[in-house]
């Protein structure tokens, strides 16, 4: 999964965003550009979070923007974004994120493999610390997770 997102250049690095909506849109851009997703998928992610709250923030610093499969998704992929400053999803700092992993799925088996790898890698706090220190695709390439 990490290998594929690096090969396909599905990553971006930013300083900060004024709103979480801007951050989610930016995080999705590489997938929009290579037609993995359509703009309506981004709208679906934003409207779900607006409706239900910041449930996509799954751990300190980490969020996984995604919506239901089917609408505006053409392929199964994971896309990475990192911001230098925390993006606030609510007034509670527990809902701050710097590491974004956008999920898109049309194939549940592949999607599950991606999720499994992602969840194992992100459960390794040392790996998360390394991710938080990365500033470029080049540096991302040199990172290794024991799972991938």
């Amino acid at each position, binding site marked *: 999964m990490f290998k594929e997102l690096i090969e396909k250049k599905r990553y971006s690095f930013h300083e900060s965003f004024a709103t979480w909506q801007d951050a989610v849109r930016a995080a999705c851009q590489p997938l929009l550009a290579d037609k993995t997703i359509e703009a309506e998928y981004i709208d679906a992610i934003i409207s779900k979070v607006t409706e239900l709250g910041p449930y996509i923030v799954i751990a300190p610093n980490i969020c996984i923007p995604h919506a239901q499969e089917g609408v505006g998704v053409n392929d199964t992929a994971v896309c990475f974004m990192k911001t230098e400053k925390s993006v606030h999803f609510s007034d509670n700092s527990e*809902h701050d994120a710097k590491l974004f992993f956008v999920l898109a799925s049309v194939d549940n088996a592949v999607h599950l493999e991606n999720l499994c790898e992602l*969840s194992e890698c992100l*459960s390794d706090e040392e790996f998360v610390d390394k991710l938080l220190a990365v500033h470029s695709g080049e540096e991302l390439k040199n990172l290794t997770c024991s799972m991938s």
Partner: protein
Amino acid sequence: MLKVIAACGSGMGSSQIIKMKLEKVFKKLGIEASIYHTNIGDAKSQAANYDVVVCSDSLIGTFANATAKKVIVIGLKNLLSEKEIEEKVLEKIVNAQ
């Protein structure tokens, strides 16, 4: 056999991660369980038929009715922390019995 629902907004991201983590924790603790993952709307309508609902902390308000019907609702701050999941399973399921 414990019947568990893992829920998230869409049923395809966080809820599947919760399911993977729960399976590990249940295995470690020797708890037999079947875990179904789904979206929040479906989970809400089915919760009364299950023993336990596990979801992100930010979604627990949705399950107020289920709590009233004696369904155990567990909200997680960190979905990736097996430590947090284990502590909450012990507190709310194992030691509550």
